[in-house]
């Protein structure tokens, strides 16, 4: 299922934060939004996940407008992992993941056997089976992020939106989470839209990169077409050299200095 954003504008009060955003992410693609701080990445994610109301413009899942869809129906097609999450101290991983079945539950019904199988499957997929009894708060950062991803998997949606899934994680957990995202994308054909800060990671794990600056998308395309010295200079204000990573088959950059 693909997600299309059409001429989207979002304002906070009088301030326009997103201006005329249009793009489309195809089925089975990993699209990564990059951009400097304050460029509107998280705002775009929030609008796409219906936490913010756009002033104008539309978002489509497949060919349906999300503001004409029931929020539960959207949740069955689109899962969201925001940055700000909260979990009580006595919620086990298993319980947390089972909350992902909420959009599929009928009013007043409990989890049926099929739901439980899906929870098992999500735990298996994210490698959380061994940790299912643990309290989510007692896990390490990487494990906890995996538990949340398992929750969104249990939603059984075709599209998943991740807002900075690697923030606050050390390098091995960052890798772990991104490898998991790619694995899920490849084995399940999930469409992934995420925000990343690390440009090397974005280049390595994305099919498509969207670059944001000042509330607009200034360019988008395949990583090797988008990430170049000009872009790094103009948007990210750094001088950098770009190399070819033969092992991972992607480009990588080494920053030299900032542009004053």
């Amino acid at each position, binding site marked *: 299922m693909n997600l299309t954003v059409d001429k989207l504008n979002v304002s906070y009060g009088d301030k326009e934060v997103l201006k005329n955003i249009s793009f489309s992410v195809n089925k089975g693609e990993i699209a990564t939004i990059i951009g400097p701080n304050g460029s509107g990445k998280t705002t775009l994610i929030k609008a796409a996940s219906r936490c913010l109301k756009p002033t104008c413009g539309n978002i489509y899942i497949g060919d349906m407008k999300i503001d004409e869809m029931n929020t539960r129906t959207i949740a069955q097609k689109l899962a969201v992992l925001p940055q700000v*999450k909260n979990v009580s101290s006595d919620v086990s991983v298993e319980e947390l993941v089972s909350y992902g079945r909420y959009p599929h539950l009928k009013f007043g019904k409990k989890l049926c056997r099929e739901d439980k199988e899906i929870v098992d499957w999500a735990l298996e997929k994210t490698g959380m089976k061994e940790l299912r009894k643990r309290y989510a708060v007692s896990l390490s950062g990487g494990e906890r992020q995996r538990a949340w991803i398992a929750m969104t998997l249990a939603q059984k949606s075709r599209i998943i939106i991740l807002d900075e899934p690697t923030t606050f994680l050390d390098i091995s957990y960052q890798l772990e989470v991104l490898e998991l995202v790619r694995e899920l994308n490849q084995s399940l054909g999930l469409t992934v839209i995420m925000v990343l800060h690390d440009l090397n990671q974005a280049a390595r794990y994305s099919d498509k990169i969207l670059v944001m600056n000042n509330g607009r998308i200034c360019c988008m395309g395949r990583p090797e077409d988008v990430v170049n010295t000009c872009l790094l200079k103009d948007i990210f204000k750094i001088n950098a050299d770009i190399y070819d990573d033969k092992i991972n088959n992607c480009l990588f950059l080494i920053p030299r200095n900032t542009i004053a």
Partner: protein
Amino acid sequence: MDSKNMKIEKIKKKSILFIFICLSAASFLISIGNGAVKISAGEILSALLFRQDTVNSQIIWNVRLPRTIAASLTGTCLALSGSILQGVMRNPLASPNIIGVSSGAGLMTLIVLILFPEFYFLAPLGAFAGALLATMFIYFLAWKDGAGPNRIILAGVAVSSLLGAGNNAIMTFYPDKVSGIIGFMVGGLSATNWQDVFTIIPYASAGIIMVLLIQNKLNILMLGDEVATGLGINVERTRFFFIIISSLLAGAAVSVVGLLGFVGLIVPHMTRLFIGSDYRYLMPATIFTGSFVVVICDTLARTMFAPVEIPVGIIMSALGAPFFLYLLRRKAEY
């Protein structure tokens, strides 16, 4: 999922719930049995089951039973209300006071009792209306493209202090009439009758049923507004609905018992310390712990210094606060 641990956990929670139900039932017998005349449990049961014409039966039916039921219902309503609010606000300090229930009910009651004493019989209705109006006013003030928990809490604090100023002003201008309303201000159940019970029953039962039907949503709301939205909950609408239910519950209770603030803050925490934060167990448990706490405290309030009766609010704080602090120290993770 069907592993042993999970089942043990469920059985444990269900047994705790069962214990709470038993305690709550026992508190009824204790409350009805104690007072100026002591009545045995057997006598109570036979009087309740087969209406007799004995003096004790008269005492039970006309005095103690309505009072105990009123105590139980107000306890349940206030505790549920607090429990809901702590969930939707994701704030452990939330209580019915935060959505203006006490200040709104207090002001309206003062206005009726002091400025229009000839309409004293409208005081409970006034308290109820005042609670609801204050809640709506706070929610309205907090609204700006949605009403987040923090804005509601801050607006609640501001409105409560504004209405509190109104309360104090009235009491300052009419010092001679203040002594008559002390019972209301600290919360008391003296002279409650069947009329009070019938006043509160419709709101209490409607509130309890609604809460039990949608308690699952509270678990999802606890995950944060954005996660809950992602899981298909209309966060604003759900939060508003829960706030109105808690205002209804607390407003109904306050109209009978007066400003009994403590129950709504502490009983949900006590219950959570025993049964955990899963609302599917917490809500049913709170119904019984709220009832138990107020019924027991009211019994003590009636009997401890008999024939003098002290307002239940005083007993509740004097006993409840230390007990709560004890629980707090014992459970390290809280």
